[in-house]
């Protein structure tokens, strides 16, 4: 068995680990080798011990299974045999410290089982097994009460969560019932107990009939309370938002009522904040054109108080060129806000397969482009120059009295466009 398993490549070799051992690491080593929990191997070894054979098996394994050399090379030179094993156990115990409480638990278990065996005069006494069944069932049921353990159990099992917990409860109850009935049967008390059992079962059925509606009610109540809690949390969030920003803005507006421009600005800022909170999914603000353009517009609007309407068609990631384009667009928006005297600014972004276009338009005073001196940095440097440096182009259409439109085009990176 051991050999056939160890031939499989993924299976860890049978070695005695240096860490996590209780006596000589045989249980832990077997568990790791077989890919099961150490508790199982330890219990199996413990059970074998009662037949006597387990002790021999344990000693043989302890002698012939090598210590895990990956964790400690120095022990390789110490050789094999009893010396090495005792040496290594002591060594490990000194370094890692054994889990004494676990060891005690196993000892207590062994002692208890031994006592029972003595009490009932042998291992083949059925009554003993029914007691063990009952105890096992009780353990399973009690485990259910421990949330941490429950979690752990659920993750290892194959079944769905709720069905798992039901299966466990069922198994536990079954084991306890088998244990109890078996115990009574083999104590030759089942017949006497039958009347009592019938009585108890009847009472239980009656109680559950009485209690069932109440329990169902409790469960429903709990669900309702949970929903209520979620709803009130949402309400609290909404209230916090309204309270924090909207009421604040309204107060500011009342205080600055004589300054219509500031009132408008405050109202716009608040409107945008509320709008993005209500309608927009959390945007990946800095990575694509659409939210990027909206953000730039929002910032300029906030700084200069002229409403900016952004419409964007299509979207793509922001690369260096597009980044420069957004900077140029910002400059155009700032110019329009500052000098055009327009009521509002329209910004239109369009992402083509080949290029990213941005139009910034106002209906303000406009200006004579030829009359702008060569050394005026605003338009030439920040807009035209910036676009050309990154391989794009900019066009400004304006005439006195006809407003201004800045047209920006930036070819897209062919690799990212593909």
């Amino acid at each position, binding site marked *: 068995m051991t050999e056939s398993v160890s031939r499989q490549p993924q299976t860890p070799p049978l070695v005695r680990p240096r860490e996590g051992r209780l006596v000589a690491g045989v249980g832990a080593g077997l568990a790791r080798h077989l890919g099961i929990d150490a508790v199982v191997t330890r219990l199996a070894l413990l059970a074998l011990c009662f037949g006597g054979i387990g002790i021999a098996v344990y000693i043989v394994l302890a002698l012939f299974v090598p210590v895990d050399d990956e964790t400690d090379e120095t022990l390789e030179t110490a050789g094999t045999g009893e010396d090495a094993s005792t040496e290594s156990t002591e060594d490990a115990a000194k370094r890692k410290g054994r889990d004494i409480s676990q060891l005690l638990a196993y000892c207590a278990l062994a002692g208890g089982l031994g006592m029972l065996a003595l009490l009932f005069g042998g291992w083949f006494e059925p009554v003993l097994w029914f007691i063990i069944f009952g105890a096992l069932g009780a353990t399973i049921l009690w485990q259910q009460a421990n949330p941490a353990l429950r979690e752990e159990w659920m993750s290892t099992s194959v079944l769905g969560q709720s069905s798992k917990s039901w299966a466990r409860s069922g198994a536990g109850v079954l084991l306890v019932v088998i244990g109890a009935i078996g115990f009574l049967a083999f104590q030759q008390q089942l017949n006497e107990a039958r009347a009592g059992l019938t009585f108890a079962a009847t009472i239980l059925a009656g109680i559950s009939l009485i209690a069932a509606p109440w329990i169902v009610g409790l469960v429903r109540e709990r669900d309702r309370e949970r929903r209520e809690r979620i709803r009130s949390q949402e309400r609290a969030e909404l209230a916090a938002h309204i309270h924090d920003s909207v009421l604040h803005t309204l107060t500011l507006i009342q205080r600055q009522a004589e300054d219509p421009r500031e009132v408008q600005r405050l109202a716009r800022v608040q409107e945008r904040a509320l709008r993005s909170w209500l309608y927009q999914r959390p945007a990946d603000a800095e990575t694509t054109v659409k939210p990027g353009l909206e953000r730039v517009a929002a910032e300029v609007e906030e700084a200069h108080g002229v409403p900016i309407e952004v419409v964007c*068609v299509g979207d793509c990631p922001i690369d260096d060129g597009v980044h420069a384009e957004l900077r140029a667009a910002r400059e155009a928006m700032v110019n329009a806000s500052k000098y055009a005297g327009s009521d509002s600014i329209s910004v*239109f972004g369009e992402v083509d397969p080949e290029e990213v276009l941005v139009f910034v338009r106002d209906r303000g005073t406009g200006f004579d482009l030829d009359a702008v001196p060569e050394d005026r940095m605003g338009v030439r440097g920040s807009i035209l120059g910036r676009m050309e440096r990154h391989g794009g182009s900019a066009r400004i259409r304006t005439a006195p009295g006809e407003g201004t439109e800045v047209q920006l085009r930036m070819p897209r990176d062919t690799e990212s466009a593909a």
Partner: protein
Amino acid sequence: MDDENTTFAESGAAPRVVIVDDHRLFRSGVRGELGDAVDVIGEAGDVDSAVRVIAEKQPDLVLLDVHLPGGGGSEVLRRVLPNQPEVTFLALSVSDAAEDVIGVVRGGARGYVTKTISGRELADAVVRVADGDAVFSPRLAGFVLDAFSATDAPPMDPELDRLTQREREVLRLIARGYAYKEAAKELFISVKTVETHVSSVLRKLQLSNRHELSRWATARKLV
């Protein structure tokens, strides 16, 4: 609409309008802003009363809020249009979320403007919609361009599922903030032609079963 084939814009007659909005304050605000340009003959604050008032008053146009108690603007369209196909609807909303805009236009509204629109522009839009034209805000134009954006998938109905080059140009200008008149000048066409293009886009938007459009719509949970 007018039986004598004259438009409101030409005759200067005020279209008869019902305002449907659940905010009383907003209704009176709009009434005041619209002034003499239109004749407000009724108001309603929810879907049921809207359907009743529209049936009763037989208006030329309904200013319809997208968000209404009792099912929203789309519900009003669904219940009124089968019985009174002659009534035109201009949708009005604080929201410029795509699902609201496209949803109500697909439902039969001939235009969509946001409530931030100025009184003069609104009156202008009302007259134009009452005359049978379509009114697209820059944002609606953007949404439409997005929804009809070119894909590799072949259209199921080439006439309905694809915008012509000219329609795209018109929509792009509207999205850039151009008024119809400005767009007409830019493209060297008449305002009437611009209006024709926009109306044709509206029809496509309402009738197209274009795969891309329905996918786009379901991604935003509408239609």
